[in-house]
């Protein structure tokens, strides 16, 4: 178990393993995304209240829920960096920040477009929306903090601390819809009952889209982490060999 843990901390080991993972991830993303998009756009019936705009949900909900997973991931990677000084963990923490900012930004943008239709307003200072906006600024803050500190070790530590402290916002976003009266609706319960307000024909394609976007998230994170590994290990022999092996770049 500890050997495995130590191995996983080795950037080279991760790089070579992810070579094997990536084709599978691409294929599963393609399959899940095709099924999910086809289902969401063409098969899901109109909502009795929202009409066709129900289709916005199949983008907004996966993106928003995964944006909430980015910050805890960054905090866990930050903790590993601080406690075990594992190099790979800091590379993951660095790579997840821009992806998290993208996810959060897209969740806000698609939410605004949807809100314009169902609430009649693009924006409201509601607890859910405001806490998600704070998460967006926190991601920008982590990125800015890293580029502001010259020493990579000091930057890694500072970003790890900010990621851990900032993670307090995640449960606030998650439960904001239950704790306060918000314009944003609370999460719906999945029901097996075909005549329930949220029947399987609505949430099964949503689950497909959530898995598709999760796989996409994994690919985006792995690609960025691999670049970070190459950049930081560029003087080691295995990267020099790898560069020499690459043709046609």
């Amino acid at each position, binding site marked *: 178990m500890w050997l495995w843990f130590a191995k996983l901390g080795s950037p080279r080991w991760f790089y070579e393993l992810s070579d094997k993972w990536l084709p599978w991830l691409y294929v599963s993303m393609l399959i899940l995304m095709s099924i999910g998009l086809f289902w969401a*756009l*063409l*098969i*899901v*019936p*109109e909502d009795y209240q929202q*009409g*066709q*705009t129900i*289709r*916005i949900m199949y*983008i*907004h909900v996966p*993106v928003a829920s995964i944006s909430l997973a980015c910050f805890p991931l960054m905090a866990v990677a930050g903790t590993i960096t601080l406690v075990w000084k594992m190099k790979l963990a800091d590379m993951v923490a660095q790579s997840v920040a821009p*992806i998290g900012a*993208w996810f959060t930004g*897209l969740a806000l*943008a*698609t939410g605004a*477009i*949807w809100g*314009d*239709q169902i609430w009649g307003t693009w924006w409201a200072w509601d607890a859910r929306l405001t806490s998600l906006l704070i998460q967006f600024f926190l991601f920008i803050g982590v990125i800015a903090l890293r580029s502001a500190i010259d020493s990579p070790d000091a930057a890694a530590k500072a970003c790890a601390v900010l990621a851990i402290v900032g993670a307090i916002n995640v449960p606030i976003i998650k439960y904001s819809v239950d704790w306060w009266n918000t314009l944003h609706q609370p999460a719906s319960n999945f029901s097996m009952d075909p005549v329930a307000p949220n029947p399987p*024909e609505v949430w099964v394609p949503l689950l497909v889209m959530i898995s598709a976007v999760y796989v*996409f998230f994994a*690919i*985006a994170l792995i*690609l*960025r982490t*691999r*670049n970070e590994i*190459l*950049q930081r290990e*560029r003087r080691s022999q295995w*990267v*020099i060999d790898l*560069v*020499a092996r*690459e043709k046609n*770049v």
Partner: protein
Amino acid sequence: MFALQFSSLSEFLHMGGVYTFHIWAVYLLFAVFISYNLLQPKMVRRHFLREQKRRAARDEELASKTNTQK
């Protein structure tokens, strides 16, 4: 449960008419988001490899020059 909701392509693109722009704007943003986050790392990687190859070639050239001087 698996019936298509639209009978023609134009009906599909029209999306009920009232919120056509909203729906397609969301899907367009999603497409931009997916493509950027897959293509950007590929560009970075290509740039890195080119840079390192150039550096390796330069080092080799330098090494061969110093060898001939000896």
